[in-house]
């Protein structure tokens, strides 16, 4: 009978970047972009509630760093021609609600949320660093540098959260687990859609 089927590989019209593992890089940049976008919205929510409190300046400073992170990933997204996740409008609202909600629990609540989210993000960045190093550390040198720097920044945010009595929040471990579960789900979805 007729052979071949539609198995003939067709030229991709996309791809100014030859030689990179496009599917892997696509996922990495899409999910990181979504993460930084979400983090921005979380801090925005926290500032909306706690902006004029004593922790306002601390949150503002962490927020400013996230803004820089997002700016960087916007650039990378355009450079590598990666599509953003369809869920962006959803993360827009969900992030803000998480930030504002945790801030309504008080300053410690906001810090607990920060600790939970930043721990998730740091772990996530570490996984990506491992993946890229396994692929080809030379080819992905610039991307690796960016992710390592950002991982360090998020780790710092995590530590700042702890310094500000995050662990003294009532039901801290429950809150932290719930938030981290949410982060895992967000990461899973944003990589794919």
């Amino acid at each position: 009978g007729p052979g071949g089927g539609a198995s003939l590989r067709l030229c991709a019209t996309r791809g100014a970047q030859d030689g990179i593992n496009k599917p892997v890089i696509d996922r990495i940049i899409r999910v990181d972009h979504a993460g930084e976008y979400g983090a921005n919205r979380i801090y925005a929510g926290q500032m909306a509630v706690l902006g004029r409190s004593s922790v306002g300046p601390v949150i503002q400073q962490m927020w400013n760093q996230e803004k820089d992170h997002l700016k960087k990933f916007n650039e990378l997204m355009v450079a590598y021609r990666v599509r953003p996740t369809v869920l962006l409008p959803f993360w827009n609202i969900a992030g803000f609600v998480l930030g504002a909600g945790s801030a309504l629990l008080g300053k410690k609540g906001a810090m607990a949320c920060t600790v939970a989210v930043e721990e998730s993000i740091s772990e996530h960045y570490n996984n990506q660093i491992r993946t890229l190093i396994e692929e080809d550390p030379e080819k992905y040198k610039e991307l690796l540098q960016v992710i390592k720097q950002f991982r360090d920044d998020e780790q710092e945010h995590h530590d700042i959260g702890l310094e500000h009595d995050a662990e003294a929040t009532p039901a801290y471990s429950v809150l932290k687990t719930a938030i981290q579960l949410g982060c895992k789900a967000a990461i899973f979805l944003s990589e794919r859609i």
Partner: protein
Amino acid sequence: PSHSYTGQGGQESEDYESEEQLQHRILTAALEFVPEHGWTAEAIAEGAKTLGLSVAAAGLFHSDGSELILHFVSECNTKLSELLKKEQKLVQLGEAEKKPIDEFLRHAVEARLRMLIPYIEKWPQALSVLLLPRNIPSSLNLLTSMIDDIWHYAGDQSTDFNWYTRRAVLTGIYNTTELVMMQDSSPGFEDTWRFLENRVADAMAMSNTASQVQSTGEAVVQGLMGAAVTVSNAETSRAVR
């Protein structure tokens, strides 16, 4: 990579050519015969003949011409990319003016649709084959890549939901214009190009309206906030007095 050497009789043989490369060559050769035979095994057989191969080579492919059509679409998309890339270089070198977005989109869509003209009689048949469930993943992939390419060269740098909106709108413009072209009998397809111009203008107007609505919305919100602050200040000062 294929190595070729010239044998003694002056005949060139491919020392190593992948089956895929061979299939591509057959399909490209077959395109010449599509206007006469349609997207069929006959066209592929004729194409194989011109390459000095047996007509049985047509047996490598589906009888409905799926691979031939997909190959054609892929080749057209590649040609479009190369054209847009070349024009982009000219703009970068300052040898050409950068087109405004609406003109660029019109130009890109028209250039791509013009590639159908030699095959226009048989294109409706091709469209129906592209819509077969078996072919939809490939044809959809080709369509979305092409639309994304056009936006890329148009200078789109959106990293938010606009990324999707713009591509959806342009896909709609492309598809509807393609259908109009199928039924257009005007000289030089001028009806089609006019239709295209109107659709692109609609899209531009829509996006202007959207941003106007957004800024109006923001202005209204700010007005309300201002009014609320004024009222609360008035209340406070009245209470103090």
